[in-house]
């Protein structure tokens, strides 16, 4: 009896390890995560691509806010840092940065950016360290965002307060650029 209880306890402990291991490995093995889903839309890297609006028949990403026009840039910083520019639309515009595994490591909105155009330089920590000193000074008015990983996603979202404003907001979003 004691023997079986011990085995049960051992099995449960081993189960705890199995649980923790699977939880940690899962993000790396997921085949239908946001990055994979958006790769079907944004086939080229370092290029801004509008995401088709969410409809009841089809939405690229679950729980998408239908009041927003969305464009995405799948970035790869392994060659060089990239520049990102987006005009601010009528109501509310935000730019969110995600790592390959969908961690939102940085987000900024139009009010925090404080301009008519949101301009950013995206680079890895290493590339930032390699920046010449004086260039850092001249680039002071440009926002520098450090990416923890070489690949990831920039997601631009612009708000349409009424459905009638959606075409106009989509046009603004289409003017956003991402590239070296």
């Amino acid at each position, binding site marked *: 009896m004691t023997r*079986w209880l011990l*085995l*049960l306890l*051992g*099995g*449960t402990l*081993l*189960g*705890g*390890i*199995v*649980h923790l*291991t*699977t*939880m*940690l490995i*899962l*993000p790396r093995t*997921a085949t*239908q*995560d*946001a990055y*994979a*889903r958006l790769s079907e839309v944004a086939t080229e890297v370092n290029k801004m691509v509008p995401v088709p609006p*969410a*409809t*009841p028949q089809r*939405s690229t*990403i*679950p*729980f*998408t*806010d*239908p*009041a927003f026009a969305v464009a995405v840039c799948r970035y790869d910083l392994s060659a060089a840092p990239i520049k990102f520019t987006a005009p601010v639309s009528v*109501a*509310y515009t*935000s730019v*969110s*940065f*995600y790592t390959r*595994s*969908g*961690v*939102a*490591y*940085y*987000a*900024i*909105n139009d*009010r*925090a950016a404080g301009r008519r155009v949101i301009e950013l330089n995206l680079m890895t920590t290493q590339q930032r360290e390699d920046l010449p000193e004086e260039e850092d000074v001249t680039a002071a008015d440009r926002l520098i965002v450090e990416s*923890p990983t070489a690949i990831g*996603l920039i*997601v631009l*979202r612009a*708000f*349409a*307060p*009424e459905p009638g404003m959606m075409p106009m907001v989509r046009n603004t979003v289409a003017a956003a650029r991402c590239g070296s």
Partner: protein
Amino acid sequence: MRLLLGLVFAFTVATVVGLGTTWFALTEGTAFGAITIGAWTAWPKTGTAGVDPYARAAIARNGELPIGSGDGVAFFASNDDSGHVLDGRCDVVLSGTTPQARFWTLTLYDREGQLIANSMDRQGFTSQEIVRRSDGTFAITMAPRARTGNWLPTGGVERYVLVLRLYDTPVGVATRASREAPMPSVATEQCP
């Protein structure tokens, strides 16, 4: 033989316990740092670099893009204030005020996060669209058939999820009490 049997038993227990808890954690949503106010729950930490491993695993599995903390915060409700599951065949009234934010949106999804088809082609309201009373409060009715005022069609689905997203808001990781974030009430009024 006894040793072999014992090992098989222990490994079976390990598999069932390990994978069972993983499955449970992923389907039930056990992310830490949840803020619950009335029927609403938000996970503001999920939109930061400090996201916990449970939320990361759930996001990777669902294919969601969590809303970044510099952008806003999303509150989810799948029950009403008294704990009844939101049923698309009933009349559910959302009323009151919302926390301070530049804009907010209310959207109705099925449990998988897909929008629900309806003849009005309306899946949500924005803070700019709704009709308010003179004191600034508002009411939105979720119902299968047309209602007066702010009507959000449910398409008659059995279960649905409401998501209230606040954009450019002070509500976030540091928010604790409902006094800081007065969320609207959700009440089931009548069921067929």
